[in-house]
């Protein structure tokens, strides 16, 4: 049940992405091209998704726990730091270069197009490489440093 529901939620998400035009880089890039061939469709995608989620979360997050878990795993950090802003700035730069974001590209993989496979392969390399850098640059956890001391 748990896995079937995750599959169906993914399918619903993917249908939304495909129907909305988020899986189509030409459409995404035209949304960002205010001074050229502007296509405002993405306002409706993000607006529709945001308002729906905003309303739904009000009810869901009042519940004591999710159906298949012990608690809601929601980020609690409120710190706006260089990693968040620098990373997001880089994401926007990359998004503006080719028009694919992770949520648009994963469903687009299903079309089997080589361009999507190329982007997702590079995306995965980028994610894994950054994780390695993060792990190396992060100070050792308290237990490990206690050992050293």
């Amino acid at each position: 049940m748990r896995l079937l529901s995750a599959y169906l939620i993914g399918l619903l998400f993917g249908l939304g992405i495909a129907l909305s035009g988020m899986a189509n880089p030409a459409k995404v890039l035209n949304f960002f091209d205010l001074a050229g061939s502007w296509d405002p469709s993405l306002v409706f995608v993000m607006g529709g998704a945001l308002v729906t989620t905003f309303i739904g979360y009000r009810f869901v997050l009042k519940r004591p726990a999710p159906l298949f878990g012990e608690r809601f795993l929601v980020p609690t950090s409120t710190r706006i730091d260089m990693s968040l802003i620098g990373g997001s700035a880089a994401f926007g730069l990359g998004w503006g270069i080719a028009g694919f974001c992770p949520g648009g590209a994963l469903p687009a993989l299903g079309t089997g197009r080589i361009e999507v496979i190329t982007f997702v392969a590079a995306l995965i390399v980028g994610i894994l490489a950054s994780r390695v850098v993060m792990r190396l640059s992060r100070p050792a956890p308290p237990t490990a440093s206690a050992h050293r001391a």
Partner: protein
Amino acid sequence: METVFTPLASLTGGILIGIAAILLMLLHGRIAGATGILAGALMPAGFADWSWRVAMIAGMVTAPVAIWLLSGAMPAVQVPVSTLALVISGLIVGVGVTFGSGCTSGHGVCGMARLSPRSIAATLTFMATAFATVYVARHVLGG
């Protein structure tokens, strides 16, 4: 490359994305962020954590096939950039979403819906740099 303005399909698609995000929170207690789901599938923290992510990604990937079965056509994927641009873009997006802790779905939809200050800051930042990048690429460099 011209595209057609599709307010109704885009709004319907957006609402479906929102319903998926609500259901993932209701059933699994998770944020529907493509970055987090993918990263966790690549570096699993145990089988139970890995399996729901893979199931969800499998659902996403089968969506175009479902549309093809229903309508007889795959959804449009028009890529107006070179292979080199795709590779560079993929690498930059991968680095950006990892350090930025999320992308359009995680910050732009789920985080904004929770009124998270981090997600609002992230979304304003990546939208701004995406607009700037397309402006520079198309109107300054003339790509």
